[in-house]
């Protein structure tokens, strides 16, 4: 039983790391401001979700009221990140558009 829980926890933690890595690579590789915000906003949110899920599963090793309460608090973090992170990305994109930054297109690169 313990081995199964460990495997599940490790699986989710590695999944979160993969998402974070993808986000970091995306921020470097993407061509312009808006497309860079895409990995920053989405993959970080999903990465945090996966990592906290892994930690929650690991935390529930010894099932009791205390660990359950801690797990609920951890999921609260995920809930608020899910609300706040896309909103922050949205407002940054909004500010960029209002400041007059043009999105990147393929044509521009050929010139």
């Amino acid at each position, binding site marked *: 039983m313990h081995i199964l829980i460990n495997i599940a926890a490790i699986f989710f933690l590695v999944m979160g790391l993969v998402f974070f890595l993808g986000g970091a690579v995306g921020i470097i590789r993407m061509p312009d401001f808006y497309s860079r915000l895409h990995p920053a906003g989405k993959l970080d949110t999903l990465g945090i979700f996966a990592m906290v899920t892994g930690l929650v599963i690991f935390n529930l090793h010894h099932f009791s009221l205390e660990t359950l309460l801690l797990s609920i608090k951890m999921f609260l973090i995920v809930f*608020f990140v899910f*609300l706040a992170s896309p*909103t922050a990305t949205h*407002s940054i994109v*909004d500010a960029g558009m209002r400041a007059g930054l043009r999105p990147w297109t393929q044509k521009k690169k050929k010139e």
Partner: protein
Amino acid sequence: MKFFGFVIVCLTGGLLLYGTMDLPDWGDPGSPASTHLSDYYIEHIVEETQVPNLVTAVLADYRGYDTMFETAVVFCAGLACFLLLRDFRPKKDRYFRHVPTGVMLHFKNPQTRLIAGNEFEHMDKDWVPSDMIIKTVCRILIPFIQIYALYVVAHGDFSPGGGFQGGVIFGSSLILMAISYNLKTLVKRVTEKFLSVFAALGVLIYVGLGVAAMLMGGHFLDYGMLAPLLPSDPGHIRALGMLGVEIGVGIAVMAVMVIIYINIVSEGRHDEGL
């Protein structure tokens, strides 16, 4: 010139690195930092104060003077911002938006009045379109941020946290309100008088607890002497005193954060900005 700067940077870095050679190793039990007071703190704090968080105990009890004057410094920062930036002259130009249609109104005459309500809302000169997503999410999040700030203040003696951190979180929730709506919304709810009184009240709570301890016959900030005033068992009284001090610090930091923000973004006019 660039080469000259590079040489200076290299020299300074080299000197700093040379200086670190004399520092004790990390975690060295024989280093000066861990030979005199640290042992005493680690051995005696829990039995003397019944506070499990040693950092809070050292900060708010053993080094109470230090933290008290830190709070006073924060208060002085807010006061200096107010004295330097506050500008009481009203602005001539005012903007309103008709909410259902989005039509903008520009008032050049300061005498004309328009009551902002459900149909008209104040607008800043730097025109910001009303964004429903940001407003809604901030409206949902702000109460939770404030509850979390109170949690951080109240848990100062049991887990990481305390007055400074909680005050900053509470202040940033109010600043978030000013960013997501506009500055007028914040100033209408949290008036300048309220903020000034609370900034002073926070410091007053801290100093008042110290003076109360003095009046009860102890030293300044000797919370153990407050035992007859508070309904609690005498062993736990120092933790309660620390909690009171943390609440004072939190109130002062919260008020000063918002005072500084409002004064800077509106250039001291408290009407519009950011």
